[in-house]
């Protein structure tokens, strides 16, 4: 799910960028914020950081004695993406293995659908491996699948989420 969030942030501007006045300073702050934001990638609470939509306010700058940089407390609005247990989403298959498939959903690459969670589908080996059911419904690379999220995991080191999903439920499965 995409979320619209409002967040406080501390933007640190090095001394050399402070000579400019007014608009140039604001531009420096915005650029720095965008850099920091892109660098952050994701957090456990809010999910993946996508984009800054509005800069709501810029507070008074505070000088950091040791480095001569100035810290500006800002508030901005932005968009994040987070995946929830129980949520129903659509994703695209990008890898088919014997025990399940990996899907891509939003910025998440590792959404895993185990063969145990797509009960009536059987693995068919080959150059282009697929999962097939008796109604000739196919799950293979580049197919869109609608699934329910049964578990999520936040990986602190990689700053990313993984999800475990299932086709157990009505109206779930490949979408044409």
């Amino acid at each position, binding site marked *: 799910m995409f979320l619209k969030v409002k967040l406080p942030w501390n933007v640190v501007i090095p001394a050399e960028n402070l000579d400019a006045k007014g608009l140039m300073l604001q531009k420096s702050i915005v650029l720095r914020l965008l850099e920091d934001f892109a660098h952050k990638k994701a957090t456990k609470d809010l999910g993946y950081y996508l984009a800054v939509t509005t800069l709501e306010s810029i507070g008074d700058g505070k000088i950091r004695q040791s480095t001569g940089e100035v810290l500006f407390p800002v508030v901005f609005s932005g*968009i994040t993406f987070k995946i*929830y247990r129980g949520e129903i989403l659509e994703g695209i298959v990008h890898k088919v293995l014997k025990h399940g498939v990996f899907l*891509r959903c939003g910025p998440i690459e590792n959404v895993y659908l185990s063969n145990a969670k797509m009960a009536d589908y059987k693995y068919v080996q080959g150059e282009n491996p697929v999962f097939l059911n008796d109604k000739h419904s196919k799950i293979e690379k580049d197919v869109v699948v609608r699934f329910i999220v049964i578990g999520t995991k936040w990986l602190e080191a990689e700053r990313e989420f993984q999800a475990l999903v299932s086709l157990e439920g009505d*109206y779930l499965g490949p979408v044409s």
Partner: protein
Amino acid sequence: MSGEEEENAAELKIGEEFLRAKCLMNCEVALILEHKYEQLQQTSDDPMNQVSQVFEKSLQYVKRFSRYKNPDAVRQVREILSRYQLAEFELCVLGNLCPETVEEAIAMVPSIKTKGRAHDDEAIEKMVNDLSLIKKFE
């Protein structure tokens, strides 16, 4: 893999702060990200280099999974669904998946039948029809 025991979007148990947070449909996010990307194209020779992987993958995703492309249609979907007593989360799942029947709507967002708001089948059918009408006239 451990799911957070209490979290369950199907029952709308997604944390107090998220229940009140604004959620965005894929089509709304598509309009915003496309606009941002266009702005970048005007100021840079290589816009793809300026955006994060997260941005790029998300833009690809929302462009593919937007049911409505026209900005007026997108606005209408938000406006019309807002007339029903829906949580932001529920509104967005409906706007994203566009169920075609009452049964499908309830399967996609089970919480619309619970949480004490008693959306009867008639109301849900109207929701589903409204969504499909907007699509027809897009």
